[in-house]
């Protein structure tokens, strides 16, 4: 800035410069005496340096530029002056101008609004600029280079492919088909494809090869078959005896259930001593009547406590007593040892019975082992406890004798296969037993009668 200012001042002091304002001379600044201030602070530079002359000069420059379109000093003389050769014929001109002017003369308001400055407006840079021009230019260059090499951009390639497909009538890109699409295609899943030759580690890391499924997972959680065929009694036209067997089975299940229910009822039954008027009255009065009797007892109880509280301190044993006790103990030990010795010797003669004993013991363990093994085996086909609920076997599907239809036409199917399948899944430990979530209303339902309804009733 300082440099610019200096420059301007230099311009002002130039001999060739003509000022617009006639009063502008270099004298006015010289009259005032300069105040002495420290110049080592920037604040002071601004405050106390006199730039009046520069300002005025610059103003003048701007005014000249605005009004005359440049510094007057730099203009050629011909543009500033003309030779006055007197008036030309005025009469003809005004007529034509008036006639013309009425048409073309702009409105005064427009004239006011028109810029009166001779300085041309600065060019709107943004109007001519393209966003990302450089990038686009580079991209275009690159594309041109690639095209020269014969590489097409992706979009172009896809377009060509699509066109080719439309021409040949085959879809190029397979849109993924939903799993349950009825028209979905299948292929030979188990055909031996080309074996992967790439590095297995690479394949695993790039998720091209899945993690191997542990063999443990291919074992079934239950040994039960997927489809359990109903017994011969479940036939639509069963043999009499097998039907009776099935009925008996169902009956037994039902009886068991009833028994459980009855037991529960018995356990929950209200006991005989139901509150009568008398007993309830007694209960109400209980504390009130006996209070008088209780009070005198209290001090008695307190005295008893004091008697019982501290236990009697034991007398210290004398030396003699200790000695005696010790001797007794040793004697006892010795006696036991002797007894053991004798027993051991005696066992020699009991060999037979001991052997028999051992045999029975072994037999028992073997039996238990077998039992345990059988239990474990049976456990394999039992439903496990997999969650909050236990598996409950569904009711047997039974048709009573009078419900049996004589012919296939009259057959009324029993039970639902859907439920059967669901239960089978539970029974085979594939899913945990569940029950339908209970519907719980958050708020109480408020019933209101509509006014129209009320009016009628």
């Amino acid at each position, binding site marked *: 800035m300082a440099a610019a200012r200096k420059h301007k001042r230099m311009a002002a002091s130039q001999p060739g410069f003509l000022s617009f304002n006639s009063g502008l001379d270099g004298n006015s600044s010289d009259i005032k005496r300069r105040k002495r201030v420290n110049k080592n602070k920037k604040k002071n530079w601004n405050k106390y340096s006199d730039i009046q002359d520069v300002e005025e000069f610059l103003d003048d420059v701007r005014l000249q530029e605005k009004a005359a379109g440049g510094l007057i000093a730099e203009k050629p003389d011909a543009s500033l002056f003309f030779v006055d050769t007197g008036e030309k014929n005025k009469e003809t001109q005004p007529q034509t101008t008036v006639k013309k002017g009425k048409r073309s003369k702009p409105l005064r308001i427009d004239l006011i609004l028109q810029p009166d400055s001779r300085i041309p407006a600065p060019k709107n840079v943004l109007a001519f600029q393209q966003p990302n021009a450089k990038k686009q230019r580079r991209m275009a260059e690159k594309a041109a280079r690639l095209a020269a090499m014969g590489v097409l951009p992706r979009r172009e390639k896809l377009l060509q492919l699509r066109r080719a497909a439309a021409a040949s009538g085959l879809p190029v890109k397979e849109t993924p088909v939903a799993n349950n699409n009825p028209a979905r295609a299948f292929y030979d899943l188990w055909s031996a494809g080309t074996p992967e030759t790439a590095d297995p580690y690479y394949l695993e890391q790039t998720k091209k090869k899945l993690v191997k*499924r542990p063999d443990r997972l291919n074992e079934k959680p239950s040994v039960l078959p997927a489809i359990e065929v109903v017994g011969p009694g479940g036939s639509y*036209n069963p043999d009499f005896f097998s039907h009776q067997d099935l009925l008996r089975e169902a009956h037994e299940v039902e009886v068991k259930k009833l028994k459980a229910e009855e037991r529960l009822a018995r356990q929950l039954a209200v006991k005989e001593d139901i509150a009568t008027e008398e007993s309830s009255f007694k209960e109400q009065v209980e504390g009130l009547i006996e209070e008088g009797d209780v009070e005198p007892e209290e001090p008695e109880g307190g005295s008893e406590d004091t008697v019982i509280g501290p236990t009697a301190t034991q007398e210290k044993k004398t030396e003699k007593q200790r000695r005696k006790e010790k001797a007794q103990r040793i004697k006892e030990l010795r006696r036991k040892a002797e007894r053991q010795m004798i027993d051991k010797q005696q066992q020699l003669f009991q060999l037979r019975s001991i052997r028999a004993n051992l045999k029975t013991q072994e037999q028992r363990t073997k039996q238990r082992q077998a039992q345990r093994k059988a239990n474990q085996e049976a456990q394999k086909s039992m439903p496990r406890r997999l969650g909050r609920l236990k598996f409950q076997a569904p009711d047997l599907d039974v048709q009573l004798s009078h419900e049996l239809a004589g012919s296939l036409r009259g057959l009324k199917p029993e039970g639902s*296969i859907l439920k059967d399948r*669901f239960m089978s899944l539970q029974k085979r430990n594939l899913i945990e037993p569940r029950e339908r979530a209970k519907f719980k209303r958050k708020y109480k339902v408020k019933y209101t009668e509509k006014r129209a309804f009320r009016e009628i009733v």
Partner: protein
Amino acid sequence: MGGLQKKKYESGSATNYITRNKARKKLSLSLADFRRLCILKGIYPHEPKHKKKVNKGSTAPRTFYLLKDIRFLLHEPIVGKFREYKIFVRKLRKAYGKAEWGGVERLKENKPVYKLDHIIKERYPTFIDALRDVDDSLSMCFLFSTFARTGKCHVQTIQLCRRLSVEWMNYIISSRSLRKVFLSIKGIYYQAEVLGQTITWIIPYQFAHDHPTDVDYRVMATFTEFYTTLLGFVNFRLYQTLNLVYPPKLDGQGEISLKPEFEEDYALESESYTEKLSALSASLARMVPSAEEEETELDHFPIEGEDLEKMEVREKMEQEQIKQKKFFEGLKFFLNREVPRESLAFVIRCFGGEVSWDKSLCIGSTYDATDETITHHIVDRPSIDKQYINRYYIQPQWVYDSVNAKILLPVEEYFLGVTLPPHLSPFVEETEGDYVPPEKLKLMALQRGEKPQTEEDEEEEEEEEEEEDDEEDDQSEEEDEAEDEANLAEMEEKRSRGKSLSVKVTPGKAKAENRKRAAEEEKAEEKRLAIMMMKKREKYLYDKIMFGKKRNVREANKLAAKRKAHDDASKEDKKKKKKKC
């Protein structure tokens, strides 16, 4: 002792298991998604041996998984898809909420889908593994294919299930691998032998559905999703093994395109082909059109001694099986409209029979009821107006029983309006000493190739049977007697009184009896009073029990009487026949 003190639950079973909730959080999935994932991947909850240890001292019942299983799940690419789907749903909901229909469309177009192919490959490394486990998927597919399109599950799923089950049935027909059929009160059980594996499945009767409320449809749908994929791949491979075209194509297009006018009535043009496939009346096209099914002969190797004998036996068996596979060949069946069409058509076609039905009943009928060459007309009504002389009118059970017996049973017992012999379960294998129903004995005799016994013998046998029945009745009556002790006591008294009339009366005895009788009466009275004093709920229960017991007795008696009446009737018939002869 040195070392740090061991902390509880930091090693052993406590670290081997993980609770369901923790597993869910580890995978950062919702519970529903977690369940889905576990079902698809075949990872099941596990019951630890020491629950308290695993549960860190708590005894609350929880669902546990093995930690290693869950770690394995972490590698599953589908988990990512589940998360994507969750986000998709969220975006879709938002777009709907803002009514941005363009956005909704775009989102729907890019709906994330996942494939189960790799999971199936992983769970069933070989085709035979998959085939062994196909029971479940068959039952589920057949079940879902019968669902009404009511929004209990996706319509697409139902259609896919239908397609797969039809494909399976067509395969069984063309491979002739059906072995057993059993009509139970629940549904129809089928058993087939495919590539050496015994496969059992159940099909519900048509129109038998009421949707039970206590079944988790979401779980079932997830299982079905997995099973449909499995069955699809299995079907493909099976079709390949038989050299059939997959997806199945009907053989001999010309024959079927003869009657297009009915098709239009029956199904839309787009659906008519699948409907024709599901009619099961036409055979499938093969990749390499073979002129005739070549008789597969066993390779002969020069063998000596015992092996030779074994080979001969095996060869004989093989030939028998081949014979059994087409014992309906040459027979022409016509199904009346009241019989279960699909099941019967399937079974008959499985054994080489020709089958047709009324053309208004279903698409794909090949001949009319008026066809003179029909040998068996299957009817399930008491009588029929117009009957042709040159065909048997039989009830549908004949087909099933014949299939189970693997021979053509005598048709007499299955004629129109005749009380049918019991339908025995082919899945029961009697061991020595078990009770074998007489019908089965007869059947086994027939299978052995013996002629039906002379009628006298039969009668004897029947008498024996009757005796057996009587015994059974006695047994059931014994049960009655246990119930009605009071009655029985009275009877005894009467009897004893009758006896005492003839013999001299001794006063002491009479008194004792009186006392006894009084005690009995008192007991009965007490019981009666107790019943009167019962609470309403207990009384209801009691009534129920008593009713059940009485009903059982009644039914047993009824059945016995029925059997006896039937036997008598049949005996009389036979006698009449004899006289005629």
